[in-house]
């Protein structure tokens, strides 16, 4: 199953969905088409914003790092954030905000514990540049590197309940390696969280 299908399994049809860092709105559009959700995206990149508007997707120009205090408690059924957590100034505060605004949060992030990144650091002695994390260390939006274990520790600290968890690997997923040993073989972690 691809990531979009995994995410849509956790979202109720016709519910209210907020996508933080929605990019060009592709995922949001898929979810709207499939589930008839009322979806809103938050984004700051001008080109992405324009692409959303062209698609007829609701997009709000707002910087996640400036807070989400304008959005009311419990005003969404689901707050979604894909591949953005690692680029936020204060990821833990945004996590709290997601669960204040939404009944549930769905979050995906690149697993920095993946064997390729580990091997890169171990054998090359240099910060990894992979397909998923394709930036040089000095010029990257990804300012936090963490593994899924780090993330789960954070959830315990902040009393966040993990109610669903799926790991998706690259080719290793065909062998089921990402399920047996996820911190080593999962490229992307997908979590379903509640307060």
């Amino acid at each position, binding site marked *: 199953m691809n990531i979009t299908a995994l995410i849509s399994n956790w979202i109720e049809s016709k519910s209210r969905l907020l996508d933080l860092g929605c990019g060009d709105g592709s995922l949001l559009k898929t979810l709207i088409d499939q589930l008839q959700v009322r979806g809103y995206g938050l984004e700051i990149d*001008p080109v992405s*914003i*324009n692409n*959303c508007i062209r698609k007829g997707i609701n997009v709000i120009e*707002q910087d996640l790092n400036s807070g989400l205090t*304008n959005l*009311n408690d419990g005003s969404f059924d689901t707050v979604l954030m894909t591949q953005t957590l690692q680029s936020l100034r204060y990821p833990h505060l945004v996590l709290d905000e997601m669960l204040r605004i939404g009944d549930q949060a769905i979050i995906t992030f690149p697993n920095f514990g993946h064997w390729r990144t580990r091997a890169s650091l171990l054998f090359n002695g240099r910060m990894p540049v992979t397909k998923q994390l394709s930036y040089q260390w000095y010029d990257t939006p990804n300012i936090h590197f963490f593994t899924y274990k780090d993330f789960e520790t954070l959830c315990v600290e902040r009393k966040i309940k993990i109610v669903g968890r799926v790991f998706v690997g690259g080719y290793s997923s065909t062998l089921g390696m990402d399920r047996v040993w996820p911190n080593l073989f999962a490229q992307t972690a997908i979590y379903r969280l509640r307060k």
Partner: protein
Amino acid sequence: MNEKSFNDGLHADALTHEVTFEDPLTLACGLILPTHKLVFETYGTLNKGRNNAILICHALSGNQHAAGLNTEGRPGWWDHYIGPDKPIDTNKFFVVCPNNIGSCFGSTGPNTINEDTDKSWGPDFPPLEVSDWVNSQVFLMEYLKIKCWSAVIGGSLGGMQAMHWAVSHSNRLKSAVVIAASLKLSAQNIAFNEVARRAIMSDPDFHDGAYLDQDVTPKQGLALARMIGHLTYLSDSALGRKFGRLVRNGDLDAAEKALVEFEISSYLNYQGDKFADNFDANSYILITKMLDYFDLAQSFNDEAVDAFSKSSCNFLIVSFSSDWRFSPQCSKEITDALIEANKNVSYLQIDSDQGHDAFLLPNRRYEDGLRAFLFATSNHLNGAVK
């Protein structure tokens, strides 16, 4: 007006029309205008389904001449945005821009004749609210046999009209574009309007508003009002960039500085005088009060979310970073209320150092945003997007 031109799809640029409605218009103040005239321009072609029409709502000092060149060869106040292949594309849309009642460019207002007295209305023109402008635009819509606007678009006071359309005539528009507007004016905004009104009323030629009977106009007061207003529509940095401390006349190094005239002084005086030659003082007082009175959520227990609850159109809300008369925060409040009301809304905060005036000026992101939104709107029209 030639009815045929709206029926058979003649392509028209900057066609000026006028219509006198013989049905009474009941105003928010309770008074009734037994008849009223609207002058309006149209651009583009109304399609057979009559569903590609866009209403442009002008702001405080605007008029019907939004686009194209008028008979004097002057471009419209939003010519950069309306026209063939422009963001509001007249190859696709039929664009209608009326001069609203109470203004002074040909539609019924203080400087037109009151049939009851055979004199100019002057200060006796009834006070107006945004709802009155919108209700008069409904007359125009019915006259043009348009059932539903594809979009209602406006900046500043124009944005307030667009919101009022969405709240009060929800089934008569597919989308609303609300630019540099707010749910209601702040104390500071009302204060600036009050200073402008006092400037006009202090002019010895004002004669309590009955200046037309005396064959004079309070030009000095109106120019001063405009200078104050104009200044607040710009930003410190834009003024600095454009004028700095440039001197037009005289020499700052000379001992005699009385002859020194700064560029900004010359510019502002010119703007004030030009405006005073073209605008009516009573209209300025009337329309600034309209702005002050506007409060979208007033009859909804101050709950903007409730005000929008019946709206069914798609919204685009736009603000400009350096606008301090209608700040991005004002537009955010509109956006947040629409999100909470579960309405379709997108919000753009455009980087610009042009202040409130930015909504009239060229800006790539603003153009792209409008274009994209209307692209989605016209797709909707053609049934391409669900």
